[in-house]
């Protein structure tokens, strides 16, 4: 059975729905406090997927995801190493990582995304929304058809809830931005209702460069996004579900957000069988 590790603690708060997402996708999910990993009671190498859920780790102090990323990069494990090196090993073993919202922010601050040239250093940031406010609103996203990752298989557009105050993706320089575009690492874009990428507020809720809502690593193993697929596991999460139900004869109760989880679980299953 595919095994997913869901990290929690220190203000992460979307671990239950993240766990439910993996379970509904057919995996076995285990919620683990980060300290259990840092104390080496739990090893990430016993899992196929590592997930960083959303929340407000350390209250978004210093910057969102920053203090948590710092722990992973610098805090010494009892065996002497640091967790980031274990994560590098985990990736080189071909495993997968997903980070949503605060989890995405951690991935970017740890240098796991976009990770051009495999330098594992920050090349982008997620900064204050242009509105200067936290906002909860559903957004329409376009999945970049050129992006390559098992997470994204078969998805073209998707509605998802965005819920953040620091979601504006900014790249460190033009060169990085160009490489991102060329490599189609900007795997999700905020769209207007007609489905085309936009910088117009509120369809693009934060003013992200390239209208970018999510990034994928060059090898397709690390996926991070601001909107919350794990909060759309049932169609009844959608703000317009009642209307869809009234006006459609083939109302499907499954939430669209489940697709990414199903994709990756299926991919690992096929790979291992």
């Amino acid at each position: 059975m595919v095994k997913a590790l869901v990290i929690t603690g220190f203000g992460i708060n979307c671990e239950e729905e993240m766990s439910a997402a993996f379970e509904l996708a057919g995996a076995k999910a285990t919620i683990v406090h980060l300290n259990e990993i840092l104390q080496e009671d739990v090893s990430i190498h016993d899992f196929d997927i590592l997930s960083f859920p959303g929340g407000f780790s350390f209250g978004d102090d210093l910057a969102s995801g920053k203090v948590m990323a710092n722990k992973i990069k610098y805090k010494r494990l009892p065996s002497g190493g640091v967790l980031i090196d274990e994560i590098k090993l985990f990736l080189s073993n071909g495993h997968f990582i997903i980070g949503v919202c605060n989890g995405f922010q951690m991935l970017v601050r740890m240098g796991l995304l976009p990770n051009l040239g495999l330098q594992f250093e920050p090349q982008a940031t997620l900064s204050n929304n242009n509105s200067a406010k936290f906002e909860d609103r559903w957004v329409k996203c376009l999945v970049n058809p050129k992006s390559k990752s098992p997470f994204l298989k078969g998805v073209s557009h998707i509605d998802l809830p965005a819920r953040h105050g620091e979601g504006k993706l900014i790249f460190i320089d033009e060169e990085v931005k160009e490489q991102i575009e060329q490599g189609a690492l900007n795997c999700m874009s905020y769209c207007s209702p007609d489905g085309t990428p936009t910088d117009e507020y509120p369809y693009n809720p934060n003013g992200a460069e390239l209208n970018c809502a999510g990034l994928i690593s060059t090898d397709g193993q690390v996926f991070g996004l601001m909107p919350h697929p794990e909060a759309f596991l049932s169609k009844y999460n959608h703000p317009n579900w009642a209307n869809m139900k009234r006006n459609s004869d083939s109302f499907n109760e499954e939430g669209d957000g489940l697709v990414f989880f199903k994709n990756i679980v299926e991919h690992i299953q096929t790979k291992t069988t």
Partner: protein
Amino acid sequence: MNSSIQLVLKPHIKDVKGIRVQKQCLDQLGIETGAVKSSSFFLIDYPASEDAIHSYAKDCILDIVTDEVLVNEIYQSTIYKSFIAVAQLPGVTDDEGISAQMAWVDYFNKEADVNTQHIFSQKVYYFENHIPEEALQKIAVRLLGNPLINKFSIGHSDNSGIFNWEPYMPKVIMTADDTVNLINIDLSDDALVKLSKEMVLALNLQEMKAIVDHYNDPSIIADREQKGLSKQPTDCEMEILGQTWSEHCKHKEFNAIIHYKNKETGEEITINSLFKTFIKGTTSVVQSSLEENKNDWLVKVFSDNAGVVKATDDRLFVWKVETHNSPSALDPYGGAITGILGNNRDPLGTGVGGGKLLFNTNVLCFGPPSYDKPLLKGQLHPRQIMEGVVSGIEDGGNKSGVPTVNGSIVFDERYSGKPLVYCGTGALMPYDYNGKASWEKPIDHGDRILVVGGRVGKDGIHGATFSSIEIDEHSPSSAVQIGSPITQKKVSDFMVKACALGLVKCSTDNGAGGLSSSIGELATISGGAIVQLDRVPLKYAGLKPWEIFVSESQERMSLVIEQDCVEPLMNLAKDMEVELTDIGSFTNSGYLDVRFGTKQVAYLQMDFLHEGVPQKIMYAEWEKPVLKEPKLHIDNHESILKDLLGSLNICSRESIIRQYDHEVKGRTIIKPLMGERGTSPQDAAVMRFGFDSFEGVAVSNGILPRYGDIDAYEMSAGAFDEAVRQIISVGGTLPNLSANDGVFWSVNDNFCVPDSEFHPENNPDGKMKLAKLVQMCQGLYDMATYFDIPLTSGKDSMKNDFKAEGVKISVPPTILYSMTAKVNDVRNTITSDFKKAGDIVYQLGETYNELGASELYKLFGVLGANVPVVRKEKAKELYISCTNANKDRLILSSHDMSDGGLVVTLAESCIGTSLGVDIDLKGLNSQLDDATLMYAESHSRFIVSVSPENVAAFEAVMKNRAYKIGVVTQTPSLVIRSGGTTILNVAVSELEESWKNGLVL
């Protein structure tokens, strides 16, 4: 030596915080600032080399993409001419600093004390214009902070662009102090009253004398002598009595003997406790009625931190709503965030504890944001209060990962002194922990007392007593606190895990009165306790023993732990990085025994502590106000409708709602805004319990203070109906309709009233105010017992007055009903927006000649006389019919009719869709004039839409209570006809425009 790190944004990065401050200065204060640059600043008093600070700054603090960093130097610029630096005052929560310490400890891999403050954060704003000092002060106190908790440094650059600024370090410097003083209470009556005021005990003469009598009792004197204690009480004992006997904790006015005279009817009655008669009394009647019908879901009412009902076979639903008004008047952000976090701790500490928080609600009452009267000393501007409270609720909910799913905002000038801030929390708790009932609170002699969470400081001393008196310009700033959601989240995660592991025997929250209340109350179960105050972890030295015992420092729980569970619990706490301390044990001695080392700090008889407070006697007198209906000339319906939609009590709350995360946990089914564009306003919220089933809960609120200006009974009954009908509207079912149907309802009642104790000079209309309170209680009783809807918990807040400079601003008597009800299948719930052109539109229920206190009348500046009256028999009959219609899925949209009446409801059902509606008032079959039909706010009505093929079936189920008034149209316009005459035809987009622009935040 201290080090410093300053961050400023790189020039090409958009400074969104700066831009926001610039806009607020201009919009709210009329101050032109020019460009504003925001900056973060950290002062570090850990010893470290310059190199170490540099690498820490670069690796842990700096964002390499956006920031420039300055180490041990201060930003200088020739562009910016003025600055304001905002630091915390000593001892005020500084989460950013604490998180920077966590980064420090992790980065250097050092064992270090992260619980006391060594890194201090502050924010600095630089302004392009040379702004006069007075205007900078105004910006600081109105927009950037609060002098009660912040230290502002302001100034200007000199000619060479140098800011002459010495950063302020808010270090607490005090020495340990274990002084215990004796209090002389052998005093005259006047001197006793003075003593109570000086010590902020909030006790009246009668209560002070009860204390004097107790200490003069020969058996008590003998008792104390034996313990080596003086005849006089210690400071700590007086403080414990003040906390425990406070209105906040003992509800003395709700438990008073009230002599009530109704001059209208001549009726005179004596009420022995409003609480026992009307609140507990209601639930007893309801409980019998439920049990007769084998509905046994009522588990725990009024005897714990929150009400408990059975939600499913294996889960309990825990529900609590509280107010946090006084602290929110002093510091709106701090008051609201501690309000929501404090309320979250109630379900966490109900029964055994460890309830998982499911959702938050909030209902807020403010003065108008455009308030233009001169502000009194200590009074904050209503807009500043609103913005601060909203941010507090935002951070309290969002940072804890609890969705804020339902709420309401009421504006009335009488809330300009003291706002009302109601915070609600629903939680799920397992039915049992390893076979032990989760809702029970067993405590035995010998069980250990442990405290978990935040440390104790001087913040929050006298919160309970302070909230029991009116606010004036001398209110203590120590009552102000800033919550730390991250500290509490860690505690909350710990509680859930510890309880699930069976390590916790039971628990309670440390709220008002701090340890003195939490342990004082738990000790009633075992019959006593011994507390060692020297073991309580402190934020800094210098607290006297009594201060440690009564401080309300936040994010703490008190746990009852059996001896052999102490060690495993300590290990768990260490793993989860929460501080857990053993501070004593429970006994059956009959005494609350408090010590500091070997020093006896307090030794109080439990019986006297909890039963010794004398019952209050109060007087109420009702005289019906002379009111009449106005004669209005109403012709321009379009402009009236637009004005109504844009009015403060009706307009869109979207800008506020979006700041609250309403779908974290992924279980919210009906959110505050839904529909095609996600902007259609809804009635009740609906959440499912988990991912394993579609069972869930509907959540609503009812609050109608302006109706109380005409009739307090109908205000209360109407608010009750409003909350019930919202739940019916989304597809809920009344309780107890059939045997063992499992449909729980759980209601919290929250009264917020002005000082209602008669005093010839200070409160000449006190009897009338108290009479209104009595009538509100009568309304509650009549409604709840009729519908079999139980109250399970609640709170009263009695002195909501603001006094300064000889002026008193009192809130109108206000009651909020916060309702929750079981939804068997959330997939069958109903939203309020119209779904499809061609669907048939009905009004359910009847309109009466009831424009009194309506939003229409308010627009014309009149009150009127005909307040809406609840006809509960007709209401219940209609609600049952609605449920029957829903069983057959006949209703496609449903919106309850309230503020603004029919046309506002219709407009709201169109907003956010691309549809319109065409209505003929003749369908209502009424003799009333058009304006009354369009704007009256009669209760127990809905606007629903039904698909054309179901019309016959629907009408049959509704038994003449459904009035076919029109049809949903493809043309996005709201059309109202009266027979052949079109009286209104307006584009929905124009209505939406008015509705969206009513409130700017």
